[in-house]
Structure formats: structure tokens, C-alpha cells
């Protein structure tokens, strides 16, 4: 029982969150940020499998998120709502809360398939080549989506709110929060079990020394492709949730900047550290939201002290100066990130007494 203390605390915290949301104690803004934390956790942790544990360098992870977002959105709109594109709903909207996991699963599988398509040609090469190919894949995916007019093209795609409303029509509980929490827990558990299994050890063997891995009988190509598929599938899942939390998707939301956010979270947390990357995802989400308030404050302060000419404003665009700056400072002073390649339980061994995770 003692060994499960932290698990129980996490579980109670999740339940408390849902109850608080239901009771209206949390406003929509706080809720959205909480959900984005979960989504970023999934996105960063899945990227960490390729960039951290496997030591490859994937730069276009948001491309797979985009695939998942569109597949999930199209499915949920087509299945549960009446839309111009698909006409009448294929299934009664009352089924939405029960069949929504299928939508998420489909988004995961299709993204994993895209991962396979990208991985097959690129894993005959290594290092920089993979980085270039994944960036290219990111651009290709976005261009394709933007050029299909039926799904909105550059205007984006919406209608997922209706699915959520259909869910609320059945039982009025904070559905999206619940789906995000469940998906995050599933992703983290799958990733943890994968990297601690012997198969996962094969992944880090490939990372360290491909020749050595091969002469121990590890099918290096298969291990790499498998890990890449798991990673892109989870990115797709996070994309599908992202689309439903917003109720609107636009391909440009998944451009190279989003991929960079993923890289920042992985390097901030420490490559090959699951707990580190999760912490980094939470911190990073908070940091971005804090900048939303901090930048106008800075602007006012600078004007009040008349350090800035009156016609010059510090706008939100400065976010994209501050975030890269964080990355530069990080590389300068703590290149290994929060935890390096260690886990929280390695740094605080006593935690192991309180948590049960396998």
C-alpha cells in the first residue's frame, strides 16, 4: 500500500481536477492550459523516444501531430455530427462519448503509418539526414493539407465542437479533460514500459552503438522503425486531442515552430529522461502562458520608466525571441537539461518507496 502512495495521490488529484471542473471551480482558461499540459506531455515524451532514447534526430515531429489532428477531426465530424462535408452523421451522436476512443485510436494508427512511410526511406541513412528528411516530411504534410480545399485548406477545419456538445448532451461532465488525462496516462505508461523492457534496451543499444547492437543480434532497422512508429503515433494522438480541445485545426499550427517547441521541451527535460521531459513539458507550457501576461507588464513598465520611445511596443511576438533565448541559455549553462538521462527516481531514490510504476 505504501508503495502506491504517490499513485493514489496522482489518481486523487486527477479526480479532484475533474470534480473541480465539473463544479465550475476552474475557469475555461485554466482548464485549457491544463489540457495543453497533458497534450504537450504526450508530444514531448513521444519525441523523446526518438531523440532521447534512440539518439536519432527527428526535427519534424509536429507533422505527425498534424496528421493525427486532421484524421481525428475528420472522423469525429463525419461520424457524430452533420456537416457540409460529410452530410448527416454516420452514427447517432449519442454514441460520441463511447466511440471517441476509436477516433483517437484511428488518429494514432494513421499517424504511425505516416511515421512508417517517413522511416522506411530515411533509416537507411543516419544523423543529419534523418533530421533533414523529417523537416521535409513536416513541410510536405502541411502543404498537402493546405492544398486540399475540401477540408478547408489554409482556412483550417472546424466542427469538432459539435462532437463535444454531443458528448455533453449524453452526460454533462468535462469530457475533453477526461480524455486528455486518460490519454496522457496511457502514453506515459506505454513509453515507460517500452523503454524499461528488454526490447527498449535494444533501442538504447542502437542509440549507443549500432554495430555493437547488430552483433548481439538486435535487428537495428526493425527496432528503429518500430520506435519511430510508436513515437509518431503518440504525436498523432496528441494532435487529435489538440484539435478537439480547440475545436478548430489549421495546418500552420503544426509547422516547424511547433516541432521546435517539442525539441525545446525534450532538451529542457533531458534527453532520455521520461520524468524530466514531462516536467519540462509542464514548465514550458506554464512559461509560455506566463509570457502572455509578462510581456504587456514589461511593455508598460518600460514605457512608465520612459526607457522606450512612445511609438514602440513590446508585442507578443517577443515570445519567439524569449523562447529561443531560453534554449540558448540552457545549452550554455545546463546542456544536459533538468535530469540528463536520469529519472526522478534516480535523483531522489527515496521516491521509489512511495511510487509503484511498471
Amino acid at each position, binding site marked *: 500500500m505504501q508503495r502506491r502512495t504517490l499513485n493514489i495521490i496522482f489518481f486523487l488529484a486527477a479526480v479532484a481536477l475533474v470534480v473541480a471542473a465539473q463544479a465550475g471551480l476552474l475557469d475555461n482558461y485554466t482548464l485549457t492550459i491544463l489540457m495543453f499540459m497533458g497534450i504537450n506531455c504526450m508530444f514531448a515524451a513521444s519525441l523523446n523516444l526518438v531523440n532521447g532514447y534512440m539518439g536519432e534526430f527527428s526535427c519534424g515531429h509536429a507533422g505527425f501531430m498534424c496528421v493525427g489532428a486532421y484524421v481525428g477531426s475528420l472522423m469525429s465530424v463525419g461520424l457524430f455530427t452533420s456537416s457540409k462535408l460529410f452530410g448527416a452523421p454516420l452514427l447517432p451522436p449519442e454514441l460520441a462519448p463511447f466511440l471517441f476512443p476509436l477516433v483517437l485510436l484511428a488518429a494514432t494508427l494513421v499517424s504511425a503509418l505516416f511515421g512508417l512511410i517517413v522511416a522506411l526511406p530515411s533509416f537507411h541513412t543516419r544523423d543529419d539526414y534523418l533530421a533533414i528528411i523529417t523537416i521535409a516530411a513536416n513541410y510536405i504534410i502541411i502543404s498537402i493539407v493546405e492544398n486540399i480545399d475540401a477540408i478547408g485548406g489554409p482556412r483550417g477545419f472546424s466542427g469538432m465542437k459539435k462532437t463535444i456538445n454531443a458528448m455533453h448532451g449524453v452526460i454533462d461532465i468535462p469530457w475533453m479533460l477526461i480524455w486528455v488525462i486518460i490519454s496522457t496516462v496511457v502514453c506515459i505508461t506505454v513509453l515507460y514500459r517500452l523503454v524499461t523492457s*528488454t526490447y527498449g534496451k535494444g533501442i538504447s*543499444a542502437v542509440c549507443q552503438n549500432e554495430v555493437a547492437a547488430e552483433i*548481439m*543480434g538486435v535487428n537495428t532497422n526493425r527496432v528503429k522503425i518500430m520506435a519511430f512508429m510508436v513515437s509518431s503515433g503518440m504525436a498523432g494522438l496528441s494532435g487529435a486531442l489538440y484539435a478537439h480541445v480547440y475545436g478548430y485545426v489549421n495546418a500552420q499550427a503544426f509547422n516547424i515552430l511547433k516541432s521546435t517547441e517539442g525539441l525545446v521541451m525534450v532538451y529542457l527535460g533531458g534527453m532520455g529522461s521520461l520524468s524530466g521531459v514531462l516536467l519540462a513539458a509542464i514548465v514550458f507550457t506554464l512559461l509560455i502562458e506566463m509570457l502572455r501576461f509578462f510581456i504587456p507588464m514589461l511593455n508598460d513598465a518600460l514605457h512608465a520608466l520612459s526607457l522606450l520611445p512612445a511609438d514602440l511596443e513590446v508585442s507578443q511576438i517577443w515570445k519567439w525571441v524569449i523562447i529561443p533565448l531560453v534554449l540558448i541559455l540552457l545549452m550554455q549553462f545546463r546542456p544536459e537539461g533538468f535530469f540528463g538521462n536520469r529519472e526522478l527516481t534516480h535523483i531522489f531514490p527515496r521516491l521509489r518507496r512511495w511510487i509503484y510504476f511498471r
Partner: protein
Amino acid sequence: MLCVTALKAAYGKIEALHGISFHVERGEIVTLIGANGAGKSTTLKALMRLTPPESPTVTGGDIAFEGKSILGMEGHNVVDKLKMTLVPEGRHIFGNLTVMENLTLAAWTRRRESPRKDIEHIFELFPRLAERARQRSNTLSGGEQQMLAVGRALMTKCSVLLLDEPSMGLAPLIMYDMFRTLKQLNSEGLTIVVVEQNAKLALQVADRGYVLDTGEIVAGGYSAELLQHLEIKAAYLGG
């Protein structure tokens, strides 16, 4: 058992082996000796079917294992199906893992079973590794790392072991120890192909040997004959 005929191998456009032929019988120790750049390591990498860019592409000839060509095979299948593996030059151990983790990882092809028994066997063979079981392997001495590399190869349950310069960077005493262990493993039934620059030492242990020079086999035969031959050509091989 292992039969190489007119093997040509190249790195990109540069041909490293110009058609070499040799054979290895079950239970033998065979050594390939020669100077730097003679193509010894290239031969082993070609045998292991490792992929470019580190390894050569076979451009001609054939490698047959028990009569069947293995040119279409991949490295991990050579380990898994043929039970042949390599102790690479420079050891290639997993530096940030402990000795124990290195050995456990090497039982990858049998990952459903517990590797405990096999690890104990390795520890009997190399007691020094048992003392260092929980130590990160990049903190080991050169000799211990070489023991770990051999131990790790044995964990794959191989019946043919290829070694690339096992004596490199070792103190003479440890070097002799290593070859004594190889001899012991051979008497237990392991077939060994060892590449060496230290020709005398290798020929003392091996049953037969081949001398490579710039991608061609220039001499071959029983170790005793080669040793005599060597003494005549001491200068040529650098004694």
C-alpha cells in the same frame, strides 16, 4: 564449415579485398595475420554481414556457411540463425551501462528467458567481471573491457566467434591470459577466427593461419609451418 571463395569487398569505389579465399572448419582456431590495412578487419565485417558505411559491400565472390551462401543475410540474422558473432576492434561495449547490463543486453535474441545462468558462466570464465558486475563499463580497465566484449559475444550463445585484434592495447600478461581463455573456449567446442597483428602470439594458439597483404592472401597453412616461414620473413611481417 565457413568457406570464403574469391571474395571481393569494397568501401564505396575503393576495393579493399581483391578476391581472397579461405576456409574454416568446425572446432578450429584460424588466424588472419598481416600488417595495417591488409584487409583483416574488412574480412571479418564482411563475414558478419554488417551494413555500410562502417562495413564494406561485397562486390564479388561468395561466403558460404555450411554450404549455403550467406550474402543475402543481415548481421542480426548471422548472430541469431548461424550463431556466429564478432568481438569488434575497439570493443564497442556500452559504456554507460554496467557490466551486468551489458551482458543482459547481449542475450537479446533470447530475451524471453532469464540470462542468469549464462551470466554466471561468463563470470566463471572471467572472475574479474564478477567483481565489477555493478560498475559502469567505461570505468573498467582496457583488459577488463576486452573481457567484457568477449563475454558479451559469448552471451549470444555463438558457436563461431570472430575476434578483431583482441590483443590491442593490452598489457602482455593480460594478452596471454586472453589467448589462454580463447584456447580453453576452443577446447570446449567453440570455433574461433582471430585477426591479429601480433603474428607470433596468434600462431602459437591457432591451428592454421593465413597471411594477408593489401587485400590478398599471400600465404596460408598450419601454424607451425607459417611460424617457420615467419622467421625467414621476420622483417617482412615485423616479427
